[in-house]
């Protein structure tokens, strides 16, 4: 009886031959695709994955107000807002609304909606939907408060008035000249989409957390007003098809997008994404590190390009200028001289050279260099130079440290009150290029520091355990107020409690200035001097150490699509996974 349960040598060789043949055959065979949509009509992109692994989170969740929903590759092409804001040309783009105006005292907003808009199941769009959306959030905020903006709506909205089919008046509890922009204008990852009342009204606002809006869908999938509809959604891939009966085309507002289909797959690793875009399987990806970007541009100059063409910074400025932030409740950073010294220990130019091969601009303010914020860079230039915010001077830093009462021990580590100074430097994955470099500079300066982005790092930072961390100021884009407001003393919480902005810095004079700015409209000429004053305090106290501007380095493959946003025609920032993604899809043209 043969030993039939084990593989003999002959069988093994046979197996090997079969595998080899299989590979050879596979090379020839073409993958089956849906024959109805050609590659040239399809836009393929790698979207933002969840937690580092190649799947989309909450892929079957269609409620845009669910918190933590880092899935933008579907909802923002099917739902639409009242207004978009395109930051690079500094333009408010009316969408479902045509215009809006504040009352004289800024305590009410009248919104005029567009006529002729309909949902993708045929239902007409109107004031009822807008009122319903805001009211639903308000009710939720008064109860459980588990939806985005719900608590804000509950706090701010006094009454919603249906003036007529296409006009809504929102009455606020307190005057706020920025309210419409903050909550009803979609930009970056912020702003509200308008929900269809006839779909959502079946749900009790208290149970919104478990409502994914996929239980009740129309003939075109989940209901929305957008130019696309969801055809297929799995954790590994989302497919959207163009809707030829989109209101934009039927009302003549905008012509239809040129692509018939959009496919999103999750971004896996930088390596794989770069390979996918270079062989044309994908038209754009989330980002490319500078060395990889340069390699792509060099090897495929005819079909890879970026927002800034093939020259630095290889992308567009993003609203996340990088800074080193201090926890002001930690004893070691309470002396302004120590904070000043830390800033002087940072060789920002070297950091840019190592992290971004020099393709990034050092920045002395926590503002992105967007059109409306540029004046402040000019205003504060003198102060920045005088305070040596961007300087690199280890000798002066050493002197400041000694003056503040620190001393180096035998191993060369700075000590204060018998404790070694420093701590893990936490950082988000988006800053992984610059974090090891900054950490090393601080280590050589004499601090005990290691870069840390382990799971749970956000907890450490926001709960006040971290001593210092790298982060971006994602707040102001066209108004200096939002970033300044981050440092208001009302955000201070004791350690162990989650603080909205974890710097925990207290300065009454500064907070008063911020309150004054808040009361003025953004266009008020009185704003600028107040902002300058506040910034002066911020810089003098070295509340944080600003490092650089932050960029989205997104490569585009021009084989199938052209008309990507670029420096000459920056119609929208090319971060297609932001809530403003539709604008880019509408702007692309077939190659």
């Amino acid at each position, binding site marked *: 009886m043969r030993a039939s349960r084990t593989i003999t040598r002959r069988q093994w060789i046979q197996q090997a031959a079969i595998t080899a043949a299989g590979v050879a055959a*596979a090379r020839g*065979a073409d993958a089956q695709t849906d024959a109805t949509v050609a590659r040239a009509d399809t836009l393929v992109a790698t979207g933002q994955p969840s937690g580092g692994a190649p799947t989309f989170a909450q892929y079957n969740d269609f409620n845009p107000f669910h*918190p933590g929903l880092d899935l933008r590759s579907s909802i923002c092409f099917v739902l639409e807002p009242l207004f978009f804001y395109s930051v690079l040309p500094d333009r408010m783009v009316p969408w479902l609304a045509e215009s809006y105006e504040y009352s004289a005292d800024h305590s009410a907003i009248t919104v005029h909606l567009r006529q002729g808009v309909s949902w993708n199941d045929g239902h007409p769009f109107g004031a009822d939907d807008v009122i319903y959306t805001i009211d639903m959030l308000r009710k939720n905020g008064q109860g*459980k408060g*588990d939806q985005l903006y719900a608590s804000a709506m509950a706090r701010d909205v006094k009454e919603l008035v249906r003036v007529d089919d296409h006009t809504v008046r929102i009455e606020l509890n307190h005057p706020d000249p920025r309210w419409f922009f903050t909550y009803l204008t979609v930009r*970056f*990852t912020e702003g509200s989409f308008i929900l269809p009342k006839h779909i959502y009204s079946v749900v009790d606002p208290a149970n919104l957390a478990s409502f994914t809006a996929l239980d009740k869908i129309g003939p075109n999938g989940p209901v929305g007003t957008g130019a696309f509809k969801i055809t297929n959604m799995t954790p590994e891939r989302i497919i959207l098809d163009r809707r030829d009966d989109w209101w934009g085309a039927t009302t003549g507002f905008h012509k239809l997008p040129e692509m018939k289909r959009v*496919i999103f797959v999750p971004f896996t690793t930088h390596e*794989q994404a770069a390979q996918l875009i270079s062989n044309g399987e994908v038209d754009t990806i989330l980002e490319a590190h500078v060395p990889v970007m340069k390699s792509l541009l060099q090897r495929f100059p005819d079909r890879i390009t970026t927002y800034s063409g093939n020259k630095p910074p290889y992308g567009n400025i993003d609203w996340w200028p990088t800074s080193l932030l201090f926890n002001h409740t930690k004893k070691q950073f309470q002396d302004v001289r120590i904070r000043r010294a830390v800033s002087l220990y940072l060789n920002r130019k070297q950091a840019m050279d190592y992290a971004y091969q020099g393709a990034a601009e050092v920045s002395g303010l926590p503002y992105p260099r967007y059109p409306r914020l540029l004046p402040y860079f000019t205003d504060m230039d003198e102060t920045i130079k005088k305070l040596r915010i961007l300087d690199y001077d280890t000798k002066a830093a050493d002197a400041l440290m000694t003056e503040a009462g620190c001393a180096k021990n035998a191993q060369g580590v700075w000590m204060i009150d018998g404790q070694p100074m420093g701590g893990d430097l936490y950082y988000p994955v988006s800053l992984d290029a610059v974090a090891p470099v900054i950490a090393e500079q601080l280590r050589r300066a004499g601090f005990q520091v290691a870069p840390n982005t382990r799971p749970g790092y956000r907890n450490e930072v*926001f709960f006040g355990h971290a001593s210092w961390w790298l982060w971006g100021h994602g707040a102001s884009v066209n108004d200096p107020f939002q970033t300044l407001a981050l440092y208001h003393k009302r955000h201070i919480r004791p350690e162990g409690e989650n603080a909205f902005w974890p710097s925990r810095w207290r300065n009454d004079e500064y907070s008063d200035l911020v309150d004054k700015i808040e009361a003025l409209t953004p266009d008020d000429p009185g704003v600028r001097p107040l902002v300058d004053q506040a910034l002066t305090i911020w810089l003098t106290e070295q509340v944080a150490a600003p490092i650089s501007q932050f960029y989205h380095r997104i490569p585009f493959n021009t084989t199938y699509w052209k008309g990507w946003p670029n420096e000459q025609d920056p119609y929208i920032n090319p971060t297609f996974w932001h809530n403003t993604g539709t604008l880019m899809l509408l702007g692309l043209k077939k190659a």
Partner: protein
Amino acid sequence: MRTGALAALRPLARRFAMFVAVIWAASTLNFFVPRLAPRNPIEEKLLAQQEMGGTTVDIQSLVRAYNAEFGLDRPLWRQYLTYINDLAHFDLGYSIADYPTRVAAVIGRAMPWTIGLLTTTTLLAFAIGSVLGALTVWSDAPRLFRAIVPLFMIFSAVPFYLIGLALIYVFANLLQWLPLGGGMGIRTMPTLTFAFALEIFKHSILPACSILIASVGVWALAMRGMMVTVVAEDFMTFAEALGLTSRRRFTQYALRNALLPQVTLLALSLGHVLSGSILVELVFGYPGVGQQLFRAIQNLDYFVIYGIVLVLVTAIALAMLVVDLVYPLLDPRLRRLGTAR
């Protein structure tokens, strides 16, 4: 003297009790370990929102609401009891990061990919590795085989995700013979056709190869250890004295006897390969259970972690139980003597 049926049931019952004990112990450890650190997964998930840029949202009330929703504000022992109770009802709960998706759905989607990839690779590696490992000990084996095995040993020293990266670079990037990653083509729609099956197969070749190359060496090593004992047995000398050919002695006497204990290791190795699958799936973007676990860990999604680890441990324990029960059937010696303990 007990009747035959009852005597047969007792070891069965004992093994089953062992199986349950394993599951329970694993679940308990599983529950407490991720909570070692005083971190809140809800906060982590909501703070991720803020990290993506938005500072407009008020996180505090959201946190309170979701903490209550997930029962994370209750004392730990209460949560543990609820957890055990849910498990007894096969209820794995909701995922925190993907709320309101259920954990079972998250795992269910990823399972087929992992099972498909790992079962085939494990079985192949087991077969190839065992034969090769046995050959190293066999003094009459051709020189060729004796030389191949050290090569595989060397490969098993290299972490298989690195082998994977090298394979991607050579076969997918340079030569473009095979896809770069993923479970299937980006523009492919799943259909029940041969072409689609072929595409799935194509996408699994590189991940499978990288696991294979790295783990054949491990099996060879294990088999080698076993063969060493078998070769030293008296019956081998007897077989040689009988004048049986080397090949016959190798396959029918040595290999066959050494292989049986290896089968028990097969069940155990399932765990080993599953661990490694995290990295392979991450490198290849293969949508299996490993990368879901990685994601859950990054997001501090306790319930998905519990679910996945539990499912894996159950699978392994089940495999071991099956092997324990089937083993006597395979090995005639044990059948006669009753179960060995």
